C-alpha cells in the first residue's frame, strides 16, 4: 500500500511539474519554429528614435526604423530611405526619398514625416537629448513629398552622421514605453518593459521583406543566464554578451558557433591634466609605458581585444595609420619618471615616487584590469589606490574633474568630430567631454577646421594631424578595442558583424536546414 502511495505521490509531483512548465519536457526551441531569439545584456530606456540614447534602444531601432541614410563599417554613407543626396553647398543638403516607402501601418512616408521628426527633436519643449546634434539646422524645406532640403547655419561636416536617425510619422507624440511606428524591416508586436520585445516581419519593407518572420529580443542582465539560455537553445544569438571566460564552455555545445570581428569601442585611460603629477606629459607617457596592454588583452580579455592607438578604430575612414606604437617598456617608464624629477626614494623598496587614485566602475572585469594596472604601476614606483564606484557617482566624479586616473570606453563614434567634443579647450564639462582639461591651441584650431571642412580627403588629413599630436601629448591613453564576439545557433546565417554592433543585417538572416546546418 505504501508503495502505491509513494508512486501516486511521485506521479502527482511529476504531473505538477509538467503542468507548471508550459511546454513540458519536450520543449520546442525557438529555432525549431523559425523564430530568432536574441539576448541583450540590458533593456533599453527608450525605443523612440527621437529620444533613445542607449545602445540597446539604438540596436532595436536598427530593426524597427529606417533612416535617411545608414553608415557602412568604415563610416561611409549608404542609402536607406533616401535614394540619394546632394550637397548643393556646404550649408545646403538635399535628400531625395525613395518612392512608395510605407510605415508599418500602411501610411506613405513623405518628406513631411522627415521634417517633422527633426523639428520635433529641435523643439526645446520635447527635451530630446539629440537636440544639440542638430543645432546647426536653420531650416528644413519640403518642396515636394519626396524632397527634403536641410539648410545649415554654418558648414558642419558631422551633419551627415546625424542623419542616421529613425523617421517616425508626422504628429507622433512621445508616449513613454509605447514605441512609435517606423518603416524598418520589423514591426513591434509586443513590448514588455525590462523583459522582452517581440517583432514581426513587415511585409511592406522598402528593402524587401526580411527572411525570418518572428524576432524576440530578451533583456537578460545576468551574464550567467545569457550563457545558460544559449546553452539551452532558448536564445540563439548573442552579440558581445558572453563573458570571455565563458566562451569555451558555450562552444562545448555543438549547436553553437562563435564568430569574431574587429570592434570600434575604445577603452582608454583618462588623465586629469590639472593634477600636479599628471600635468607633466613625461609622467603620462611613463604610465603608458608601464602598462602591459598586450598581457591584459591576452589574459583578461582572452585575446578578444586589439591594442588601440587612437580613439578611432583602424578600419574607420579617418583613422591615421602612421601613429607611432607605444609598447610596454617598464625601464623606459622608470627613466622618464626620473627625468621628470620623481625619484624612487628606496629603489625596489615599498616607498613610492608618488601616489595616484584610479577610478573605475563596479564591473568585475574592469576591477580586475584596474588591479593589474595598479600592480604594474607599483613596479614603476607609482602607488595607485583603486576606487570602484557605482556608475552614477563614478560618472559624476569624472564630469566634475574629481579624479586623477580613470578608465572608460568610447562607444558609437560615427564621426571624427569626437575630437572636438573630447579635446577642444572649450569643451570642458559641462559643455563637452574634455574631462581632463586638455589645452592645445593647435588641436583647437584643427578640430574646429575639421568640423567645417566638407571634403573627406581634407578632413582625413586634419584628423590625422590631430591623432599625431594626441599620441605625443597623451591627454588620454587609448588602451584596446574589444573585438565583437557573436555566439549563434549553427543553423543561423546572414548576420554581419560590424564594428559598431549594428543589427540592421538581422533582416538578411535565415535558418539553414538539414545537411546545410552542419556546415
Amino acid at each position, binding site marked *: 500500500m505504501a508503495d502505491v502511495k509513494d508512486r501516486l505521490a511521485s506521479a502527482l509531483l511529476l504531473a505538477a511539474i509538467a503542468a507548471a512548465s508550459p511546454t513540458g*519536457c519536450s520543449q520546442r526551441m525557438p529555432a525549431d519554429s523559425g523564430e530568432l531569439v536574441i539576448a541583450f545584456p540590458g533593456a533599453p530606456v527608450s525605443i523612440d528614435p527621437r529620444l533613445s540614447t542607449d545602445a540597446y534602444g539604438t540596436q532595436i531601432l536598427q530593426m524597427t526604423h529606417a533612416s535617411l541614410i545608414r553608415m557602412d563599417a568604415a563610416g561611409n554613407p549608404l542609402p536607406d530611405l533616401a535614394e540619394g543626396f546632394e550637397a548643393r553647398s556646404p550649408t545646403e543638403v538635399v535628400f531625395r526619398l525613395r518612392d512608395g516607402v510605407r510605415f508599418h501601418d500602411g501610411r506613405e512616408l513623405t518628406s513631411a514625416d522627415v521634417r517633422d521628426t527633426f523639428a520635433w527633436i529641435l523643439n*526645446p519643449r520635447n*527635451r530630446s537629448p539629440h537636440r544639440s546634434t542638430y543645432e546647426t539646422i536653420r531650416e528644413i524645406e519640403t518642396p515636394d513629398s519626396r524632397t527634403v532640403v536641410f539648410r545649415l547655419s554654418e558648414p558642419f561636416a558631422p551633419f551627415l552622421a546625424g542623419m542616421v536617425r529613425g523617421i517616425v510619422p508626422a504628429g507622433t507624440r512621445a508616449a513613454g514605453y509605447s514605441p512609435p511606428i517606423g518603416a524598418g524591416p520589423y514591426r513591434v508586436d509586443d513590448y514588455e518593459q525590462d*523583459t522582452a520585445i517581440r517583432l514581426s516581419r513587415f511585409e511592406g519593407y522598402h528593402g524587401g521583406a526580411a527572411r525570418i518572420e518572428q524576432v524576440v529580443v530578451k533583456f537578460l542582465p545576468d551574464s550567467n543566464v545569457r550563457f*545558460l539560455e544559449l546553452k539551452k537553445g*532558448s536564445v540563439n544569438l548573442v552579440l558581445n554578451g558572453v563573458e570571455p571566460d565563458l566562451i569555451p564552455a558555450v562552444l562545448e555545445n555543438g549547436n553553437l558557433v562563435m564568430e569574431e570581428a574587429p570592434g570600434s569601442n575604445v577603452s582608454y585611460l583618462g588623465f586629469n591634466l590639472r593634477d600636479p603629477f599628471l600635468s607633466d606629459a613625461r609622467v603620462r607617457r611613463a604610465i603608458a609605458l608601464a602598462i602591459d596592454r598586450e598581457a591584459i588583452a591576452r589574459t583578461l580579455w582572452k585575446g578578444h581585444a586589439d591594442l588601440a592607438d587612437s580613439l578611432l578604430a583602424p578600419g574607420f575612414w579617418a583613422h591615421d595609420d602612421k601613429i607611432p606604437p607605444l609598447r610596454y617598456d617598464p625601464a623606459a617608464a622608470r627613466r622618464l619618471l626620473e627625468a621628470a624629477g620623481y625619484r624612487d626614494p628606496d629603489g625596489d623598496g615599498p616607498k613610492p615616487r608618488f601616489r595616484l587614485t584610479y577610478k573605475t566602475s563596479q564591473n568585475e572585469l574592469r576591477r580586475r584590469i584596474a588591479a593589474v594596472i595598479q600592480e604594474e604601476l607599483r613596479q614603476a614606483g607609482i602607488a595607485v589606490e583603486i576606487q570602484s564606484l557605482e556608475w552614477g557617482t563614478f*560618472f*559624476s566624479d569624472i564630469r566634475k574633474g574629481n579624479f586623477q586616473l580613470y578608465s572608460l570606453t568610447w562607444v558609437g563614434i560615427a564621426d571624427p568630430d569626437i575630437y572636438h567634443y573630447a579635446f577642444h579647450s572649450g569643451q570642458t564639462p559641462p559643455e563637452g567631454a574634455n574631462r581632463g582639461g586638455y589645452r592645445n591651441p593647435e588641436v583647437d584650431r584643427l578640430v574646429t577646421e575639421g568640423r567645417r571642412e566638407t571634403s573627406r580627403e581634407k578632413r582625413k588629413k586634419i584628423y590625422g594631424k590631430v591623432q599625431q599630436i594626441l599620441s605625443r601629448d597623451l591627454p588620454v591613453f587609448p588602451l584596446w578595442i574589444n573585438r565583437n564576439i557573436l555566439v549563434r545557433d549553427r543553423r543561423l546565417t546572414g548576420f554581419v558583424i560590424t564594428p559598431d554592433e549594428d543589427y540592421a543585417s538581422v533582416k538578411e538572416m535565415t535558418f539553414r536546414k538539414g545537411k546545410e546546418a552542419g556546415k
Partner: protein
Amino acid sequence: MRRYLFSRLRQMVPVVLGVVTVVFLLIHLIPGDPVEIMLGESALAAQKEELRRELRLDRPLAVQYGDFLLGMAKGDLGTSFRSREPVLREILRRVPATLLLSAASMTVALCIAFPLGIVSAMRQHTFLDHLCGFLAMLGLSMPNFWLGPLLILIFSIGLGLFPVSGYGTAGHLVLPAVTMGTGMAAILMRMLRSQLLEEIRQDYVRAASARGLSRRAAVVRHALANSLIPVLTVMGLQVGALLSGSIITETIFSWPGVGRLTIQAIDARDYPLVQGCILFIALCTVAVNLLTDLLYSRLDPRIRYE
C-alpha cells in the same frame, strides 16, 4: 478594535513620512546629475540648465521637498525623468509581478517550513531532526546568486522542465519562487521547531495526550497554534522584505519587479521614481506589519486590541 486600527494607521504616517524624507535627502545628496544622465554629455550647457529649470531641480532642496510632499498628499508622485510616464503608473505596472513572486515564494517557504519544522520538533535528536537541521543550514547558506543559476542548470538545462528566465507563465514562476523561498523556509523552519519544542513540554499537551489524543494530534491541533505567534512575526518581516523585491533574484530571472525598477531608478538618478518606489515599499512593509499584529488576535483570543 476600530480605535486600535485608527491609532495604528495614524502611527503609520510619521513612519512613512520619515522613510520618504530620509530617502529624499539621500538621493539628493549622493553624487550624480539626472539632467546629465537624461541629456547625455553632448547636450549644450544652456539646454541642461533649461531642463534643470523645467524639472524644478534648480530650486532649493527645501522647496523641492515641499513640492514632493504636496504632490504626495494629492496622490501625485510626479513623472519619471527617465520614461516620462507618471511614477504611479510605472510602479503599478510592476506590482503584479512583485506580488506574484512574493506570494509564490512565501508559499514555497511555508510548504517546506511547516512539515519539516513539525517533524523536526516531534523527532528531536533523531536522524530526521539532524537532516532537517542540515537542510535548514544549507538553505540559509546558499546565496540566491548561486542557487538561482544552479536551479536553472538542473531544472532548465538538465531536465528541460522550466524556462531559464522571463515572466508570463506558471513555468517562469517556479525557479525564482524556489530560489527566494528556500532561505526563508530555513528561517521559518528553525523558528517553528524551537517554538514547538517549547510548547510540546507544556502541561496542556501532556494533558491532551493523557486524555488519549495521539502525540501527532496533540502537537498539530494544540501546540502548533500556540507556536505560531513568533513564526507569524518573522513571516511578516519576511513578506516586507519580499515585497521590496529581491534585486538579485529579479536580475537573474529577468523578473520585472519593483526591486529592479528601484535599482534602475537609482542608477538613472530618477528622483521621483526612486521616491515613489521607496514609498511603495515603506507602505507595504508597514501594512504587512499591521496585518501581522491584527492576526495575533485571531491566533490567540487572549490578545485584545483596545
